[in-house]
């Protein structure tokens, strides 16, 4: 202890850190079943292959007209730049809150508190982070460019895929680098927010002006190089490399307070993901970003009344304490849903999945009060009410929130139509028909996710292939329900192609989703009764089968 001499002449800390990492890897590897690892890799590759094939098929729509091509060449870089700006803005925000590194909690306690230069200790995790972000970007970039090649021409997949992969990798690496720069320089969250808004604003200006003045727009130009190559856009590559290198070199300045908080919450998020518990992931993500309800509500409500309305009023109180960032997120999800559905209507069918996911996430946000009851089952169980009635009473306020989100989406589409993207009449009529089904099914998808029981552990002796399919179905079941609410959009698009009025077609097609939605809400109320009915039926059948 105190008498033990510190040995500054011992092996360089880098050697000790490498030995530590090696020992951990060795111990982890000892507990891994190699064949299981190969099998998981095989399943993942198989799943990715199927997804790419399906996506390619789904996007196999018509090629753009020459006029549309010219529009893409003129405005595409700005629009893609806006997407890049969104990624960079998220990275800046994450960096200002200690991201993107997520260290093991033990590393924070033992390595970062040791007398070892932190930049040395964190260099390796930082490089891994940049590498991983670049890889994810590469995959997404390649995938998107393959989809784009179907409609944009310009040399086909062999030309588009390498360009998309390179641009995606660059965007991923630079995003990780930006995050590391912000966390290493301890950029305060409010400054991070301002920077993120500035990046978005600059890019938005590019879109508005129809010109490229920002680095994000240059990235957009690079991404569209197969259509039109502009040599000047290559300069942005230097910026990307500089940001990544600067981020890695400056990572030693990170805040231990933030690093420790991220370490704890991120491990919980991983655990929640293994249970496919999206609700917990949403909750923990809020903690990670230190998103707290407002101590003072936006509007003061009167005292709680008795009876069923007490639940509504409790839900309303929660709503009045939403922090601005959550309200902003709901608005953004509404805008994304509207824009994605407009894109799907215009011909890029896979965008309907983006729209559904946006509505699903909005539903998870809106369903907060019910989710809290599910998180703390003792509380509702201690009240003298039928559980189903209590759950049902939680539905109206989130539904009202979802209607607002859908209205925002509709308004987005109307604005796009007014800007000349497509017919205003179509936006108004089809949007109106979609309003209720999308809001209701967005909520029902979230309900299905929140009330879902955790996966059974053990006792499930299904073959691996069937068990895998079951896991996938569990994961996609809730968001897929939201897709049902968007069926009227596809029906309206089909009607338009057949020269039939799309508005009335969408209204007729909304009956099925509305019925599914009502059934979903009814499931909230009668869940236990249905379970009990099936259990009794099964028990009766077993009794009858038994020999006398």
């Amino acid at each position, binding site marked *: *202890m*105190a*008498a*033990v*001499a*510190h*040995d*500054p002449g*011992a*092996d360089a*800390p880098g050697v*000790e*850190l490498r*030995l*530590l990492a090696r*020992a*951990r890897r060795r*111990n*982890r590897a000892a*507990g891994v079943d190699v064949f299981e690892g190969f099998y998981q890799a095989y399943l993942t590759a198989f799943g990715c292959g199927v997804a790419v094939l399906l996506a390619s098929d789904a996007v196999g729509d018509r090629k753009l007209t020459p006029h549309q091509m010219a529009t893409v060449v003129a405005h595409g870089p700005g629009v893609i730049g806006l997407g890049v700006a969104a990624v960079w803005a998220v990275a800046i925000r994450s960096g200002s809150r200690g991201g993107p590194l997520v260290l*093991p*909690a*033990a590393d*924070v*306690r*033992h*390595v970062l*508190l*040791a*007398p*070892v*230069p932190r930049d040395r200790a964190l260099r390796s995790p930082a490089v891994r982070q940049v590498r991983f972000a670049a890889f994810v970007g590469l995959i997404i970039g390649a995938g998107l460019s393959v989809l784009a090649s179907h409609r944009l021409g310009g040399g086909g997949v062999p030309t588009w895929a390498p360009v998309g992969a390179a641009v995606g990798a660059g965007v991923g690496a630079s995003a990780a680098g930006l995050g590391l720069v912000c966390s290493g320089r301890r950029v305060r969250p409010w400054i991070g927010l301002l920077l993120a808004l500035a990046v978005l604003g600059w890019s938005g200006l590019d879109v508005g002006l129809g010109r490229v003045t920002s680095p994000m727009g240059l990235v957009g130009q690079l991404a569209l190089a197969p259509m039109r190559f502009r040599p000047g856009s290559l300069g942005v590559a230097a910026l990307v490399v500089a940001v990544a290198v600067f981020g890695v070199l400056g990572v030693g300045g990170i*805040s*231990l*307070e933030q690093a*420790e908080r991220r370490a704890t919450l991120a491990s919980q998020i991983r655990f929640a993901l293994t249970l496919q518990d999206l609700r917990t992931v949403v909750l923990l993500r809020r903690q990670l970003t230190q998103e*707290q309800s407002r*101590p003072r509500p936006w509007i003061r409500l009167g005292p709680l009344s008795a009876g069923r309305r007490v639940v509504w009023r409790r839900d309303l109180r929660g709503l009045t304490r939403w922090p601005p960032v959550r309200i902003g997120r709901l608005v953004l999800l509404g805008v994304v849903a509207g824009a994605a559905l407009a894109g799907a209507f215009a011909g890029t069918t896979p965008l309907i999945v983006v729209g559904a996911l946006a509505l699903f996430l909005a539903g998870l946000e809106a369903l907060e009060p019910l989710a809290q009851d599910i998180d703390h089952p003792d509380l509702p169980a201690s009240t003298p009410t039928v559980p189903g009635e209590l759950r049902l009473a939680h539905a109206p306020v989130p539904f009202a929130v979802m209607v607002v989100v859908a209205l925002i989406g509709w308004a987005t589409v109307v604005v796009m139509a007014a800007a000349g993207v497509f017919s205003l009449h179509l936006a108004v009529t089809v949007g109106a028909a979609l309003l209720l089904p999308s809001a209701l099914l967005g909520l029902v998808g979230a309900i299905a996710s929140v009330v879902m029981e955790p996966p059974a552990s053990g006792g499930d002796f299904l073959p691996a292939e069937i068990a895998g399919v079951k896991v996938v179905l569990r994961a996609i079941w809730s968001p897929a329900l939201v897709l049902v609410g968007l069926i009227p959009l596809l029906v309206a698009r089909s009607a338009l192609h057949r020269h039939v009025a799309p508005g009335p077609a969408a209204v007729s097609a909304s009956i099925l989703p509305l019925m599914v939605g009502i059934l979903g809400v009814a499931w909230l109320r009668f869940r236990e009764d249905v379970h009990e009915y099936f259990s009794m039926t099964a028990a009766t059948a077993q009794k009858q089968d038994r020999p006398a």
Partner: protein
Amino acid sequence: MTDHDLAPALEATGLTKSYGIHPALEPLDLAVAAGELVMLVGPNGSGKTTMLRMAAGLLEPTDGTVAIDGFPAGSLDARAALSYLPDNPVLYDDLSLVEHLHFIGRLHGVPADELDERGAALMDRFGLTHRADDLPVTFSRGLRQKTSIAIGLIRPFSVLLVDEPFVGLDQPGKRALTELLVDAYDQGATVIVATHALEFAEVAKRCIGLRDGELAYDGEASAAQVERLVS
């Protein structure tokens, strides 16, 4: 002799911490001289852990400064001088007990030839020898706490900060820990222990009491005094 040799082992100047609008520690001025054995007491939420974590460099002060041996908390020199034993043990799930002692000892510059001997002595003291090659993920709360203490004591330090060390320990563990803390003090280290264990007042030389984030007492330690401060 340098300024740092003359500096207090721990010095807080206007040290403040707030979580949002909630103050956890009001501006605190405090100095602990080298070689003191201090008991830090106070009811739950009084700011003990917050103060220790800021001194360890794990929390950033909202305002004010804290220094270890004259070096800013969290700096390389402060980290070389300090050992912090947290109230919640955080261990690698993929390193055995003996590997924890070895690698963390090496990171703190313990000469390789001393590590085996010191590690064996600490494990023996806490009855952990037969679990040396086990992963802590299989340990009980008490065993994890003992492992965490062994890690904290294997490294060189001149200042030892200890947060609620007796929680989860059995009687032999508590006895062994008290002896080790007194040993460290006897060898010239500054030892600051945040605890609710009244019996520690028998060995502590000074008691610092916090209440609602403010300094409530600073003087001699006695069981009666500590009980009054904790209640």
